[in-house]
């Protein structure tokens, strides 16, 4: 048996500022060359565990640790962050934020500069590592100008110059669109195969990581390790949903159909999955027993974008002849890659930017002469990062802010704020300071602060980005509730689950144009659109094919309808 490269023995950790330990009783061995996925809901301690392995604890985040952690047979406590970074290379979650150098070459060289390497050696070394990760042709480019996959390569090169044996990925998929995320997982896999490094991935988007094989999944909850098992074994149990992690969709579908998943059927990925004749029959039966969809009722058009064309001052042609009709009370998703025009479109709708050609009509009335404030009375806009919106220390004041600016009498303010706090599930926290809330709760505060202005339509930029399944569900329940109250909800998103589960219709942007406007099920089963818009086909599609169901889109639609019934049930 090989020696473990990282070993936790009865390890615990408590931050100085906290009353309770964040990590308890961690026993974990990671062997050289292994690929480990550490999963768990927000607040389960997986980030803390990561920081313990890369030295940010206790260097940047002080606290008290118990038990023992050894990295390559050296006790971590006795090492400095610099010594640890010679062994463990960390790729941080925020791909853009972690770039230090102005060009790819400088960014890769950063660690070498700090090690006082001479310039000639440094240039050679940078070239070597850049070739290794496949970014050699972009050395003089600015990191901002690269695609998501290339950025991932640069950040890996930046830590690999230290010749580390362990690569640590802290939520590598959090800021990537589905297709780039898939690519990132492939890159990680390829680099590991070539370098033989030990890879540790921290991520709660399990299905996406499992696009390539991992050796073990370590599941954490409340600061403890719940399970540590090979994926085929783990996925044959119910521990994932029980612990607030979403299991791969094809497994959920199999369970709905009454199929029992066993490790032998290799459930690790939809491509390795094998089903018996009987199982396939069960899935087909489940599909055929579906109810036919009710005819859609015709609704009035709330917002009509007619031939919108917009070019930024710097000459970037962001929107090209956009025609969209948004119906009253609809729950719509706008999807597409970064720079496809979806955010620009929402800015034009809110009046933050003005289109050069075309018109926007709200309730058949041209909005041309509406000010930002007048538009905001009808259309609310929630930014992606709640920290960019919150300006008051108290939750109540923050939500009341918009009303007070509009000089609404204080007794009405109180009644309205309390009402929206209830809708957003924040009423119990109304007297709390904003700083005590989690990211997901802050997000709900920003939704409440827009909702209080009674908009007929609300646009949300990435409402669920960076959220684990529980917070995701909480936010989406709020939006679903708004939708049922008749408010039109438009979500700009990368998240395919979100789109599938909640949006009735999706509009796909690509290169400044609308390339599709259809039901989510139809879009996510259309290979051509998926390719063009950097989306990823849903594994339900593959499952349908596997079971010999030709109408894959109907199968996906059935899954969505069935799941809605289940949730209501």
């Amino acid at each position, binding site marked *: 048996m090989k020696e473990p490269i990282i070993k936790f023995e009865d390890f615990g950790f408590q931050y100085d500022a906290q009353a309770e330990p964040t990590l308890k009783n961690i026993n974990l061995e990671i062997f050289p060359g292994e690929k480990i996925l550490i999963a768990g809901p927000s607040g389960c301690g997986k980030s803390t565990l990561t920081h313990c392995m*890369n030295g*940010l604890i206790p*260097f*940047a985040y002080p606290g008290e640790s118990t038990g023992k952690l050894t990295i390559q047979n050296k006790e971590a406590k006795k090492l400095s*962050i*610099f010594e640890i*970074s010679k062994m463990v*290379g*960390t790729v*941080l979650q925020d791909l853009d*934020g*972690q*770039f*230090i*150098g*102005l*060009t790819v*070459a*400088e960014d890769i*060289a*950063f*660690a*070498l*500069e*700090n*090690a*006082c*390497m*001479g*310039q000639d050696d*440094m*240039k050679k070394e*940078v070239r070597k590592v850049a070739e290794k990760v496949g970014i050699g042709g972009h050395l003089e480019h600015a990191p901002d100008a690269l695609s998501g996959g290339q950025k991932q390569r640069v950040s890996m090169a*930046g*830590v690999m110059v230290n010749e580390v044996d362990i690569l640590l990925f802290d939520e590598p998929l959090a800021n990537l669109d589905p297709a780039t995320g898939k690519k990132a997982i492939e890159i990680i896999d390829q680099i590991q195969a070539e370098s033989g490094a030990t890879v540790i991935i921290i991520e709660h988007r399990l299905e996406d990581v499992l696009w390539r094989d991992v050796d073990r999944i370590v599941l954490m909850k409340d600061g403890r390790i719940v399970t540590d098992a090979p994926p085929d074994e783990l996925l044959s149990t119910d521990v994932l949903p029980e612990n607030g992690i979403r299991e791969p969709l094809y497994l959920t579908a199999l369970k709905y159909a009454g199929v029992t998943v066993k490790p032998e059927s290799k459930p690790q990925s939809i491509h390795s999955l094998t089903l018996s004749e009987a199982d396939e029959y069960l899935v087909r039966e489940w599909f055929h027993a579906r109810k036919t969809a009710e005819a859609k009722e015709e609704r009035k058009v709330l917002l009509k974008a007619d031939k919108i064309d917009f070019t930024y*001052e*710097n000459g970037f042609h962001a929107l090209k002849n956009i025609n969209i009709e948004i119906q009253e009370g609809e729950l719509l998703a706008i999807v597409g890659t970064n720079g496809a025009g979806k955010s620009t479109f929402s*800015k034009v709708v*809110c009046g*933050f930017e003005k289109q050069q050609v075309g018109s926007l009509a709200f309730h058949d009335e041209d909005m041309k002469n509406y000010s*930002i*404030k007048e538009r*905001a009375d009808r259309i*609310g*806009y929630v*930014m992606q*990062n709640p*920290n*960019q*919106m*919150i*300006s*008051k220390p108290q939750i109540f004041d923050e939500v009341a*802010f*918009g009303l007070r*600016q*509009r000089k609404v009498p204080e007794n009405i303010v109180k009644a309205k704020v309390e009402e929206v706090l209830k809708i957003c599930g924040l009423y119990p926290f109304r007297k709390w300071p904003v700083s005590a809330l989690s990211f997901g709760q802050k997000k709900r505060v920003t939704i409440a*602060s*827009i909702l209080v*202005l009674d908009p007929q339509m609300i646009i949300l930029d990435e409402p669920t980005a960076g959220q684990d399944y529980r917070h995701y569900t909480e936010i989406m329940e709020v939006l679903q509730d708004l939708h049922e109250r008749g408010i039109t909800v438009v979500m700009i998103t990368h998240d395919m689950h979100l789109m599938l589960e909640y949006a009735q219709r999706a509009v796909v942007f690509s290169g400044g144009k609308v390339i599709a406007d259809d039901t989510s099920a139809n879009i996510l089963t259309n290979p051509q659109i998926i390719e063009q818009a950097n989306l990823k086909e849903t594994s339900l599609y593959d499952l349908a094919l596997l079971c010999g169901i030709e109408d894959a889109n109907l199968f996906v639609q059935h899954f969505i309808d069935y799941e809605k019934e289940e949730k209501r049930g």
Partner: protein
Amino acid sequence: MIQLFNYIDRVSPIHRLTGASKLACMLCWVLAAMVTFDTRYLIALTVFALALFRVSRIKVSEVKVILIFSLVFLFMNNLLIYLFSPEHGVSLYGSRTVLLTFTNRYSITAQQLLYHANVVLKYTATIPVVILFVSTTQPSEFAASLNKIGVSYKISYSVSLALRYIPDVVDEYHSISLAQQARGVELSGKENLIKRLKGATAILMPLILSSMDRIEVVSNAMELRCFGKNPKRTWYRERKFTPLDYGTIVLGFALIAISLGLQAVNGGRYWNPFL
């Protein structure tokens, strides 16, 4: 978009100089202009600075914002000098030639005018070189050059990072301000000043918080890659000195020498044509 300090890529002899020699020369230049009140010398420096500006192929429109900023500052500076000491020139030059009289206290004298001309010339002699340095030096080389003239590399790096983030922060300010305007914050001239200031805090709070997040990420990223491990570090972008670089530094010292030389000739910092 507003850009205060940014590198403007061109092909010019000034761009080819290393950051360190440019920095040294700029500091000498500024010092030389600060010390002297010799109008002739200041005019010469101004002409020279504008000529260099021409050589760098940077267009005035590209540095508009900082120019306007300095002009406002220049105007305020002169106004305040005149308001608080309208006879400063008279006491300096030891004579009084009245050109115009407003009140007892405020009149216009030739000596005061010359003094103001000197102040204006100090700006015109230095601002072009400072702008030149900033817009012809890549931020990463900027850090390397600060370090080379003896500033600790940690400070050098933070200064260059800060300069680099300015455009990002401005962008962020813009998007936060739009979102807050949508919630009813009024920033336009329609509201009174106090309301607008209050509105500005509604934007600054979130801006500061999100900037702190950004700082945390980048400082973690730097520490994880051994920033601060050694008392020294090397620089990927550092370039070797060429004869032109040595020439530039010599020029800088020569300017100071002239400045000091003129002091000896004039018998003090002031060149006095009224004698």
